[in-house]
């Protein structure tokens, strides 16, 4: 049985987001949406997390941070880019310090566009991420 489907733990990192998407991510945990129903926990610790949620674009200063967070996560792991800034850089794409979307640095598995991404869209993205996670776990088992 795939228990990873039933308990995806999330690490949320704010790249250079305007906080709009961050508030929507946290809104998923509130009584209205309550993602803990599906076993989702906001861990705040890369070593415990399965899904890395990144909001905001990647810039020159946070590239090492994002990379380190990703490297510290235990396999299997997936990356979800939340919001248009995380998917492509959004309106900040042309800024001198902005590198672009998260996919410039990390292998992004799921893109959740929107400005700000709605909680329903984020939950949808996480559900897609869980499917990817399951696939990755299967690969991990085959490689052993």
């Amino acid at each position: 049985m795939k228990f990873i489907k039933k308990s995806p733990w999330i690490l949320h990192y704010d790249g250079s987001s305007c906080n709009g998407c961050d508030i929507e991510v946290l809104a998923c945990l509130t009584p209205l949406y309550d993602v803990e129903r599906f076993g989702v926990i906001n861990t705040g610790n890369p070593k415990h997390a399965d899904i890395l949620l990144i909001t905001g674009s990647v810039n020159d200063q946070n590239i090492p941070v994002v990379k380190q967070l990703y490297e510290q996560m235990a396999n299997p792991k997936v990356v979800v880019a939340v919001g248009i800034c995380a998917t492509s850089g959004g309106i900040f794409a042309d800024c001198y310090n902005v590198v672009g979307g998260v996919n410039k640095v990390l292998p992004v598995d799921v893109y959740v566009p929107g400005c700000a991404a709605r909680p329903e869209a984020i939950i949808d993205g996480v559900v897609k991420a869980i499917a990817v996670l399951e696939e990755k776990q299967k690969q991990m088992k085959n490689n052993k």
Partner: protein
Amino acid sequence: MLMYHTSYWRLSKIMLIVKILLIIILAPIIGGLLTGVDRIISARLQGRQGPPVLQPFYDVLKLLQKESIEVNLMHRFFIYISLIFVMFTTVIMLLGGDILLAIFALTLGSIFFVLGGYASNSPYSLIGSERELLQMMAYEPMVLIAAVSLYYTNHSFFIKNIVSHDLPAIVFLPGVFLGLIYILTIKLRKSPFDFSMSHHGHQEIVQGITTEYSGTDLAIIEITHWYESIIALTLVYVFFAAKSPMSHLLAIIACIIVYLFEILVDNCFARVKWQHALNTSWVITAVLSIVNLAILSFFM
């Protein structure tokens, strides 16, 4: 006659082994279910629906299937040793063994857990370990006084003797029991005293001692905690159980009430500073237990 005797002896040995195996298997299952109920009740108190009852088991089984990142060899080793000592404590307590031995074995288990925290060089883990030591300083005197008080009223350290008297220990030791309830909050890792590591989201020290653990190791820590919940509730049980079978039912009800009370406290209070936890638990230990024992010595 001799044949009969040896076969009887063998049967009792087998029974003992079966009992030990049952305790080792059932204790974490009950502990995990308690945690599941805890999470649902906490969610309902916050106006949420909450996860399914089996969620703690899903979490642990998921962690067992994940990769375990090895920081260094000792880091992982200490966690397994800690689990073994906590399992040993559970077996002693539930078989009605020596409560003093159980407490010392439990302390040793906690110490190995702290050493595991110190083994990694993560600053969060180090702060968590130091706070865990302070928590141990806060609760350890009360646990020892509880054991000594139980000896004072029953003249035995063995749990099977303590729970077979005419009157339950709570009649003689209400103050000691209240003190024990206070420190059980620390032992069950509930707010306001969950400052060394916390199950609830990210906090100021990134889950303290468990910062550097992942995969199987984190699952082992969670299972150890399930055993510890059972140990904590067994301490409550000992205070209520007596000779009559009804009192054992009453003791189980008391355990459930205490656990529900701890969940309520967990949801009602914010985390305090360690100074506050240490000071209040020592003051409460000293006042409640000394007054209780002084009154008791006057009457007995």
